[in-house]
């Protein structure tokens, strides 16, 4: 154990999920002679948020149905105007070609009898949902393309820090989660694609890994980007979703809706006013859940046997195959029962909300040579197609950039210090188990950060998160796998501190439930129509600052056009 492995590549992709596999493929396509390495702490065959497949695309901008401009408008309104429209536009513009390319690789999207994409309108505005009833093989198809493009893959190595020298990213360090080797990778460009911080809050079920997001996504990239000196943006815009109660998956109204199912209150009536998926919609669900008309459920029992069987076939085969067994275990049946829903734990995820590492329309972070894509990169409401698009953008731009620089030898003292930090838990194998340390940390997140937010609670939380560094030092690991879990708890703590500081900084309510402050219940465009960015300053402290919203390229009047909670 603790053997030193040194690797070298032109473009290093950290994380082999949706964005990461696409980044690797596109970097290699951009320069087949360049060397591309995907680093993955699991195995890319089944890793990342789409590991077990995907049953639909939420943001398909298909010519003839919608335009990139319309898409930018919807996302601008859904995100209360706080967007870099140029970045959002890329998803609208390039999404169609990504879908076509995926299709050429064998990914199946639902088509109508004439062979056209069978788009569904799920909300009252926009027609962007493209079902994938055969989407369970998405990840294996991507893996096949990675292999075919001769992208190198190193599975079972977890990155812990990006190496930054001479003002630019020059590689990363980490360790092998099976044999414990210390791994140093020199790279000319580094692309972070590590997904959401899905393990921030604790699910109502109490299970550490029973999260909405893939539980292996612990905010690794958020923390690594922060420590690399990159800016993060709008971290206070949490991810919260309506979920099946006690089950770590969405009720899938996107899938069942086109078949006639709908989200209803206990009286069986629809109650959502909001026209599009947004924090406003979550606020409505939260209010209904906490009213006399709760709980909320996905209603299907008015549908016929054939329709319900088809819904079951899609839902139980693709995204979460355990779903059928979950309902069966509870004696529930869609023919007679609604799917009871609850509000999820909080997380950070730009794919669903807006919190992430700040990137421009080229996928560049504020650190030279460091790129970010997917759920961890701050392009609001980007979902899966956005992850593919930004994987592509980062892969191409990263490869182009890599041709302009040389490898830099990492500072040996810095490497030694990082090595000591990583392996500390192995020196105390009988230290506090990572599960206990993580559980307590995430209980604190729930207690003090779960919206609705209040200044007093968040200040207590922040204090706890800062002090928690001492608790982290008590953690022990008996093997490299446990060491991986320990390092994930470090990432979660970093994200919790960022979430608390950003939430305290923005003194208004915005994005519906995502940043609903009891002490500042109203939106305040005069003072807070801006991004809240944060970074690690030169003294090592977390600093927050306002950052103006970039000029719009698609006209939207955010004072007039809002998805509001107009509860009658």
């Amino acid at each position: 154990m603790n053997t030193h492995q040194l690797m070298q590549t032109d473009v290093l992709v950290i994380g082999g999920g949706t964005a990461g596999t696409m980044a690797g493929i596109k970097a290699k396509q951009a320069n087949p002679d360049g060397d591309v390495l995907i680093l993955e702490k699991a195995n890319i065959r089944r890793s990342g948020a789409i590991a077990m497949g995907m049953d639909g695309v939420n943001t398909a901008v298909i010519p003839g149905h919608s335009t990139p401009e319309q898409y930018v408008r919807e996302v601008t309104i859904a995100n209360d105007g706080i967007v870099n429209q140029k970045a959002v536009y890329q998803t609208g513009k390039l999404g169609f070609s990504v879908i076509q390319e995926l299709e050429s690789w064998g990914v199946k999207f639902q088509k109508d009898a004439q062979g056209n994409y069978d788009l569904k309108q799920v909300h009252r505005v926009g027609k962007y949902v493209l079902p994938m009833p055969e989407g369970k093989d998405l990840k294996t198809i991507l893996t096949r393309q990675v292999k075919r493009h001769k992208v190198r893959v190193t599975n079972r190595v977890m990155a812990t820090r990006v190496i930054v020298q001479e003002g630019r990213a020059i590689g990363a360090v980490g360790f092998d989660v099976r044999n414990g080797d210390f791994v140093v990778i020199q790279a000319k460009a580094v692309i972070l694609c590590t997904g959401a911080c899905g393990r921030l809050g604790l699910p109502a079920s109490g299970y550490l890994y029973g999260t909405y997001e893939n539980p292996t996504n612990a905010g690794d990239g958020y923390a690594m980007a922060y420590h690399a000196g990159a800016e993060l943006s709008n971290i206070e815009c949490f991810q919260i979703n309506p979920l099946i109660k006690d089950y770590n998956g969405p009720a899938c109204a996107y899938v069942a809706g086109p078949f006639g199912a709908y989200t209803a209150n206990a009286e069986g009536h629809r109650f959502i006013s909001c026209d599009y998926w947004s924090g406003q919609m979550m606020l409505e669900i939260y209010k209904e859940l906490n009213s006399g008309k709760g709980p909320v459920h996905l209603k299907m029992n008015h549908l016929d046997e054939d329709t319900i069987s088809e819904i079951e076939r899609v839902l139980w085969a693709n995204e979460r195959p355990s779903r059928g067994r979950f309902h069966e275990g509870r004696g529930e049946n869609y023919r007679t029962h609604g799917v009871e829903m609850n509000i999820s734990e909080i997380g950070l995820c730009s794919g669903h909300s807006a919190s992430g590492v700040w990137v421009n329309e080229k996928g560049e972070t504020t650190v030279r040579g460091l790129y970010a894509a997917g759920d961890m990169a701050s392009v609001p409401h980007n979902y899966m197609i956005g992850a593919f698009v930004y994987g592509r953008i980062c892969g191409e731009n990263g490869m182009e950039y890599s041709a302009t620089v040389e490898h830099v030898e990492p500072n040996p003292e810095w490497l030694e210090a990082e090595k000591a930090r990583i392996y500390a838990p192995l020196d105390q194998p009988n230290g506090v188990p990572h599960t206990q340390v993580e559980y307590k940390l995430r209980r604190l997140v729930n207690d003090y950060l779960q919206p609705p937010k209040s200044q007093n609670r968040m200040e207590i939380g922040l204090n706890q998160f800062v002090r928690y560094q001492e608790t982290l030092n008590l953690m022990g690991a008996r093997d490299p796998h446990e060491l991986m879990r320990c390092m994930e708890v470090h990432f979660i703590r970093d994200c919790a501190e960022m979430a608390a500081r950003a939430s305290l900084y923005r003194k208004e309510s915005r994005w519906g439930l995502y940043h609903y402050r009891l002490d500042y219940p109203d939106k305040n465009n005069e003072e807070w129509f801006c991004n809240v960015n944060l970074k690690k300053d030169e003294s090592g402290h977390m600093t927050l600052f306002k950052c103006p919203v970039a000029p719009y390229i698609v006209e939207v009047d955010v004072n007039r056009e809002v998805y509001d909670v107009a509860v009658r």
Partner: protein
Amino acid sequence: MSFDVDDELKPWIEMLQSPDESDRLVAVKTLQHLYDERAIDALIAALEDSSVAVQKLAVTALWEFANPKAVPALIQCLGSLDEEIREEAKSALGELVTGDHLLLLLDALQQPEVNVQSHVLYLLRKIHDVQCLPYVLPFFESPNPTLREAAVTTLRYLNQVNQCAPAIALMADPDEKVRRAASLTLGHLSDSEAIPCLCQALTTDSDWQVRRDAAKSLALHADPAAVSALEKAVKDEHWQVRKFAIQALQKTPVVHTMPLLIQALTDEYSDVRRDAAIALGLLQQGEALQALQQALDDPDRDVSIYAERAIAKIQKSMQEPSNA
């Protein structure tokens, strides 16, 4: 058997010949993970392994390799005695078949094997080629209702087919699943002969799903000749028939349907009420305003939102100068 392989692949390919099933399982799984296309011939050979488990893994591996070379062998798997293998091969072929495999599929369609025939009829939908038509039509006469249903569904996916009398004839099929498939297919043909047949099914078929599917197809045709049958269907005993009949009426707004639609604003099912509100908005008649005002208080939020939009639409049309 010789393969052009390197040292990494060779032991696993050799292990596929082991008399021990466990060894062969390990070998086929490893080859799947190695993703080396030079293993394709060996995996194709493994499709004939004596072990069903090995066969199934070989199908999965070939699916992941996605090399068209495996298509003929996978088509043979559609006739496997094992259902899982048939289904896995069908899924794999769903991804792999292209227009280049049309003749291969049509050949397979001649095999007197129901499983192969029904799966190939399904796969032909991925190709959309009108050349299939003469090969598909004989299945309309099949004694097996599954094949009749599969064939008339496939017809829907064949581009350039506008008229097809045998499909209309299937609306009288004794099997309701065949009639359901036929009624949906008729929506995709631009054959005016289909309208009376769909109208009859909408109002008289004993199966409510046939009636619902007829309404869906009539919405696609948007032919005023169907309005009378659709009016009847708005009073159907099944709510889904009522819902889709109103959706069809939205495509051909006729003022005299207004009282019927106003009545539908009080339907037991919210989806029916919502579609009635939308339809009334399209009629643009001031007489509907009072009923729509009442619908604003509907307990279902969607109904009230669409009633609000319908009112706005009607009021706007009343403000516009008449073209008369």
